C-alpha cells in the first residue's frame, strides 16, 4: 500500500481545505499530482475510502442537536491561521459514529448536554448558542468548562464541566485519533501537530531525519498495516 504523496509547495493544505469549505467535502479533496507520482500512490487506502464516504445526516443526533454540537466542536479547534479545524478533520462525524459504537452509553449525555448548553446560552446571553458570535460562544464554553453554567433551569445533568470535558475529549479523538475510526479525515489532525505517523520500525537514518525535522511523515492508518487488522474474526 503506497503512502499518499505530500502536497506541492505553494498550495497549502489549509488553502485547499478552505476551498472545500465543509468537513464532508474535505474528504474529497484530490491529491495534487506531479511527475514523481506513481500509480501506487494513487491507490486508495482503506482510510481514504472511509474518509471519502458521503456526508449524510448524523445517525444519533437531531438536526438541531447537530447544529449545536457542530458550533461547539468548531470553537474547540477552530479553523484559523494555524490550519484546518475540528470540523475539517471530521470530528463531528467521528463523535456520531462513536455514539453508535464504543460511546453509545454517552448518547443520552449528549442529548441532555446539548439541550442544556442551548438553554444556558439563551438564559445567560439571550440567544441560542448557534446565534452567538465566536467570542460569546467561547465565553459560554468557558462557563461550561469551569462548571459555572448552572443558572436556574439550565439543566446540566451533573456538572457542565463534565459535559464540556466529554465533548472536548471526543473532539480530540476525532481530530488526532486514527482515521480508521472516522475522524482525522485526510490526516488533518496529524498534519496539524506534525505527527510523523505510524511505523512498524524506525531505521537509524529515519531516526536521524526525525530529529532534524526532515522525516517524511507516514500517512497511513495503523489498520493499513498487516499487523493491525481491526475487528476480524479468527
Amino acid at each position, binding site marked *: 500500500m503506497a503512502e499518499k504523496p505530500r502536497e506541492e509547495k505553494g498550495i497549502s493544505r489549509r488553502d485547499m481545505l478552505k476551498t472545500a469549505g465543509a468537513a464532508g467535502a474535505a474528504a474529497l479533496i484530490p491529491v495534487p499530482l506531479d511527475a514523481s507520482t506513481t500509480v501506487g500512490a494513487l491507490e486508495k487506502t482503506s482510510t481514504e475510502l472511509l474518509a471519502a464516504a458521503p456526508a449524510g445526516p448524523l445517525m444519533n443526533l437531531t438536526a438541531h442537536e447537530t447544529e449545536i454540537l457542530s458550533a461547539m466542536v468548531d470553537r474547540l479547534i477552530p479553523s484559523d491561521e494555524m490550519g484546518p479545524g475540528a470540523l475539517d478533520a471530521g470530528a463531528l462525524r467521528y463523535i456520531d459514529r462513536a455514539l453508535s459504537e464504543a460511546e453509545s452509553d454517552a448518547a443520552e449525555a449528549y442529548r441532555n448536554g446539548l439541550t442544556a448548553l442551548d438553554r444556558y446560552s439563551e438564559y445567560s446571553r439571550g440567544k441560542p448558542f448557534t446565534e452567538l458570535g465566536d467570542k460569546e460562544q467561547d465565553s459560554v464554553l*468557558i462557563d461550561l468548562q469551569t462548571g459555572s453554567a448552572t443558572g436556574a433551569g439550565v439543566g446540566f445533568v451533573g456538572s457542565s464541566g463534565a459535559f464540556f470535558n466529554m465533548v472536548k475529549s471526543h473532539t480530540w479523538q476525532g481530530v488526532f485519533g486514527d482515521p480508521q475510526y472516522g475522524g482525522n479525515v485526510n490526516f488533518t489532525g496529524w498534519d496539524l501537530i506534525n505527527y510523523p505517523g505510524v511505523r512498524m520500525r524506525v531505521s537509524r537514518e529515519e531516526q536521524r531525519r526525525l530529529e532534524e525535522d526532515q522525516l517524511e511523515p507516514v500517512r497511513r492508518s495503523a489498520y493499513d498495516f498487516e499487523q493491525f487488522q481491526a475487528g476480524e474474526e479468527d
Partner: protein
Amino acid sequence: MSQLTQIPVRVAGIGILATCIVTAEIDAQSPTTFIVESPTMTTGEMMPRDYSPDGRNMSPPLRWRGLPEGTRQIAVICQDHGAGNPPPWVHWIIYNISGTADGLPTGLPFDSSEPMPRGLEGAVHGNNGWGLPMYRGPAPPGNSLHHYDFAVFALDEELNLPPGLDREELLEAIDGHVIGRGDMVPIYRRQRADSVSTVN
C-alpha cells in the same frame, strides 16, 4: 523578603462585611489605603449579573483614586474568601497595570492574543482559580450569597511580571513593593435571566 503581616483591610462601613474578615498579605511598613470604586457596583451591594456567568461574564469596570505617591504599577485580584479549599477562590488576577492608569474598563479580553485597551498596554492576566488567565465571574452554589473582594495593590516598582502567575506567586512577587491597597467588596447570588441588574 520582608516579613509578611496579616492586617485587616479597611473597607467602607458596611455592617454585612463584619462577617467577612478580609486579610491582606502586604508589607506592614507603610501601606496606604485608597479608594476603589466602580460605576456599576459598590461594596455590599449586588453585582450586576453581566459580570457573572448568569450574564455575559465580562470583567467589571473599576476605578481607583488616592493612590500613594510613587505608585509605578498596579495589580488587581478578585477573590472570594468564602470559597476555595483553602480559601480564597480566585476569580481574576491582572497586573503590570501602569501606575498612571485610573482604572479598568469593562470587558477586558479573555483571549491573551487580543490586545489590552489603550492605556493598559503591558497589563497581563494571571491564572484564576480555574487555572485560566482571564476574568470569570461569581457563581456561588445554590442560593448562597458570597462576597467578592476586588483588591487593588499599588506597587512602588515596575515589576513587569510574566503572565500566568497564580495568586500565591503574585503575592510573593509583589511582597515588599506594596505601598498601598484599596478594596471593593460587592456581593452576588445566582440570578434568573429576567433579573433587573443587567448592565447595558
